[in-house]
């Protein structure tokens, strides 16, 4: 079990000065931002109640919403696929992407869950993470330590050193602006070279067959807009009934992720098309001609029937609970499941399959529930998981 080896690692993690510096910088700027934002948008607190109801209802109707979303997406010209587990997800994605040499990828925990980048790389396809944090993690051959801020565990000094070692053409300095500029110029050509873009989605509206991708960097916009093909891997729990529901979910997500308003809100409902000549619709005007959505189950539908795990399906992946969890504040993403970090990450590991023994680290303090927009109390789920481990359920 992971926890047995982990016990010996804790001391080392606790002594990691770089980790402590990076975490305290990230947590304090998150807190300052969030306080400012909530002051400016106090209505967010009202909105969360509505969003909780929307998500509860959606989890309840998860199978029906997959069907509705599929129907409407197909009507919009999207090819929709359904993967029952990670393996099937990888297979479908490979089938869709096997003709590609180069792929640009936007940040997606769902892709991480099925280890899509590593899988495609093992098939000889070049895959570039284009979100800055994910790119750094890729360059360091590390794991994303936070669902919103993947490189949260690294102070700038470590990042610069690693990037200087890996990116032969660009030399970044210790100045954050310079690091961003260097990565931008390094990745620029990849966007143009890429045969396909891969993304996840933050939320999907069943009624219109639209997916929403929230971002600040502009990389998701490029990755999903420039190449000829776009493949989106989306967990089925992301589907809500209507577009207005989806916008509400998105608004709460970005607010709790620490942004007043994101730079870009991408709403994608069909492949790129034009009817400008004789009103005849032609696909692939400036954007992708082929648009594929792979809906991933991987334990979610089963979890929607489980008294405790269904609560975790309400998660918007805003990352608040991690910044504010006392264990996370010490261990960062070393605590959690192999992919999903923090207390909620262990619940997600229970849903998607994997070792959940790290549940024994939880303080059962419910601080996460206090800061979570959905009021998800990971302590309740993790105590249940302890029982499952002890009684081998």
């Amino acid at each position, binding site marked *: 079990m992971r926890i047995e080896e982990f016990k010996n690692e804790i001391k080392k993690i606790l002594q990691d000065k770089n980790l402590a510096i990076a975490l305290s910088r990230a947590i304090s700027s998150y807190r300052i931002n969030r306080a400012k934002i909530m002051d400016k948008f106090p209505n967010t607190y009202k909105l969360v109640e509505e969003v909780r109801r929307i998500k509860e209802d959606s989890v309840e109707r998860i199978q029906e919403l997959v069907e509705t979303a599929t129907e409407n997406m197909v009507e919009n010209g999207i090819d929709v696929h359904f993967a029952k587990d990670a393996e099937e997800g990888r297979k479908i994605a490979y089938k869709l992407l096997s003709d590609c040499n180069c792929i640009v990828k936007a940040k997606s925990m769902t892709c991480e869950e099925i280890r899509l980048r590593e899988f495609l790389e093992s098939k000889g396809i070049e895959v570039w993470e284009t979100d800055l944090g994910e790119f750094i993690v890729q360059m360091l051959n590390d794991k994303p330590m936070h669902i919103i801020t993947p490189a949260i565990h690294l102070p700038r000094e470590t990042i610069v050193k690693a990037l200087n070692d890996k990116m032969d053409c660009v030399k970044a300095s210790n100045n954050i602006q310079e690091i961003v500029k260097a990565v931008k110029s390094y990745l620029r050509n990849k966007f143009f070279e890429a045969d396909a873009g891969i993304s996840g989605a933050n939320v999907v509206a069943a009624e219109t067959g639209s997916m929403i991708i929230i971002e600040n960097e502009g990389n998701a916009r490029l990755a999903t807009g420039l190449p000829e093909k776009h493949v989106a891997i989306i967990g089925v729990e992301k589907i809500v009934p209507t577009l207005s529901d989806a916008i509400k979910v998105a608004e709460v997500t970005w607010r709790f992720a620490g942004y007043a308003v994101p730079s870009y809100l991408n709403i994608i409902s069909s492949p790129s098309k034009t009817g400008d000549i004789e009103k005849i619709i032609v696909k692939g005007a400036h954007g992708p001609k082929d648009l594929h959505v792979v809906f991933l189950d991987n334990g979610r539908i089963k979890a929607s029937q489980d008294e405790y795990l269904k609560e975790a399906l309400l998660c918007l992946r805003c990352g608040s609970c991690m910044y504010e969890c006392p*264990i996370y504040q010490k261990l960062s993403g070393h605590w959690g499941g192999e992919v999903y970090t923090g207390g909620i990450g262990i619940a997600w590991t229970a849903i998607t399959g994997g070792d959940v023994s790290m549940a*024994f*680290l939880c*303080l*059962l303090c419910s*601080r996460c529930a206090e800061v979570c927009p959905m009021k998800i109390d990971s302590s309740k789920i993790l*105590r*249940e998981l302890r029982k499952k*481990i002890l009684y*081998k359920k």
Partner: protein
Amino acid sequence: MTSVKIELQALRIIEKNFYRSGNPLGIKTKSPAEILGISRNECRTILYTGQSYQLMPYVLRILSIIDKFGKLEKLANLFSNLNFSKLIIPKMENRFYSAIRGAANALKNAKIDFGVLLNEPYDGSLYYDLGMDHIVDENEKIIRSEFEKNKVERIITISPHSCYMLKKVYSLDVEVIHIYELISNIKCNKKAVIHDPCILARKLGIVTQLRIFNAVEPENTGKNTLCCGGPIEILFPQLSLQIAKSRGNELISAGLNKIATACPVCLMNFLRAGFDARDILSFFSGDANED
């Protein structure tokens, strides 16, 4: 249970100790009657400590031994067939017992009549937290029968963990009240930085009722409190200690080195991390050093 690999020995010992002594440490704790110097009267209202405040001085000692000599497993190996209570001398016990004395005085001041149980069972909270529900069930039976035997109608808890167990976990046919719900009218002018215990603030909603002294508010207070790290002290002592240090430093950065809290686990972990901590109830103990 026997096929459990995780923290094998620690969990097994904790389990075995229940059958030996009714609590996770396998020791005989002092009863509240002994600490208060009273014998049980016929009162249907009982001041219940759940052994929580009495176990912590032993935990504090065990942890200081672990800090010096390494893992609990090693220690457990050494002591597994011996009697813990004969070998482990409790540490800073007065900090914990004075909370019980303070509770009794505060209730007297509030003119509330109460008795104590001579044979007071453990509250079961650690077993519940660890997910060892077979023991939680057994413990519930023990508590129920003890309450029935003594015709208890009303329980006044002093540990948040006991209160949570009695109110939210067990289904007992008694009224359960936490002490601060009864003494919130009494005030004292002692000054300290307040640390709200998580369970009390978030799971039981008791926040304003604790402010019966001159409480200095730190960052992250009330329902927004940060955990002391105590609940994982046995399984992950180092991590638990680091969390206590961070929270303790946050507390004293409010401008005062004196910390006051309302939970034996928080108290234990702050003391372990070297902070000057006390229980709010100790302010009423009349002890000279609890000023």
